[in-house]
């Protein structure tokens, strides 16, 4: 997959509900099909991003962990 990331969000250091809330704000100004990459350090963001994507229909393409930083790549529905 070689689609480029349209928006990158640094959510490190933020805790619930800001990682989700800020992602929701950012995704509003994106076009359908574009990708957003978010990095967070709140461990709760792992289940929360999955739940949020499931409920909003946005597609969680990748979820990786690197030294306490959780990275999410989401495609806007």
């Amino acid at each position, binding site marked *: 997959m070689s689609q480029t990331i349209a928006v990158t969000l640094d959510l490190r*250091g*933020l*805790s*619930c*509900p*800001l990682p*989700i*809330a*800020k*992602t*929701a*704000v950012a995704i509003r100004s994106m076009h359908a099909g574009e990708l957003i990459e978010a990095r967070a350090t*709140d461990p709760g963001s792992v289940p929360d991003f999955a739940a*949020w994507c499931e*409920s*909003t229909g946005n597609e969680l393409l990748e979820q990786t962990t690197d030294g306490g930083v959780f990275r999410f790549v989401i495609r806007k529905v």
Partner: protein
Amino acid sequence: MTTETVSPTTYDEMFEAMHAELAAHEHESAKHSNLVIFAWSGDLDRIWPTFILATTAAAMGMQTTVFFTFWGLFPLVKNEVRITGENWMQKMMSMMNRGGTEHLGLSKMNFAGAGPAMMKKLADEHHVASPQELLEVARDLGVTLIPCQMTMDLLGLERGDLIDGLAEPAGAATALARAQDSLTLFI
């Protein structure tokens, strides 16, 4: 004379149909696309979860409304406004119960303001967003914040005493009209 007997299999079928019916409705009622929170309390430990739930619901695409009534109205007062009201009773009330997100007390362990100070320090250390920050995010996400007109009259709060970005003050009927077909919480 004939007596109708119901065989055990028919009972099983009836129960199965009943369970299927219940399950279908359970799913129906569990799925709401709107959230209405009645924010009645001005306590920090209630306003905090109110704003957390409201911002998260809006982020999830739910049409979200918070109706601020009674003590719940005080967090909407501008932080710099000290005394509100027309008569001595309303003024006294605002002196003893200062409005604004910076001046909220805890429902327990308040210790004349030491409790909230400790809570805010803990929140800072754990990077938990303050009610003020959450309020701003709520406005960004389009949460409808309705001040209760009746409480404003009762407590002598003017529109100018309250923060910007609120919906027009309204009454119980507006809030309840929005609450139909919505998930509702009274906090």
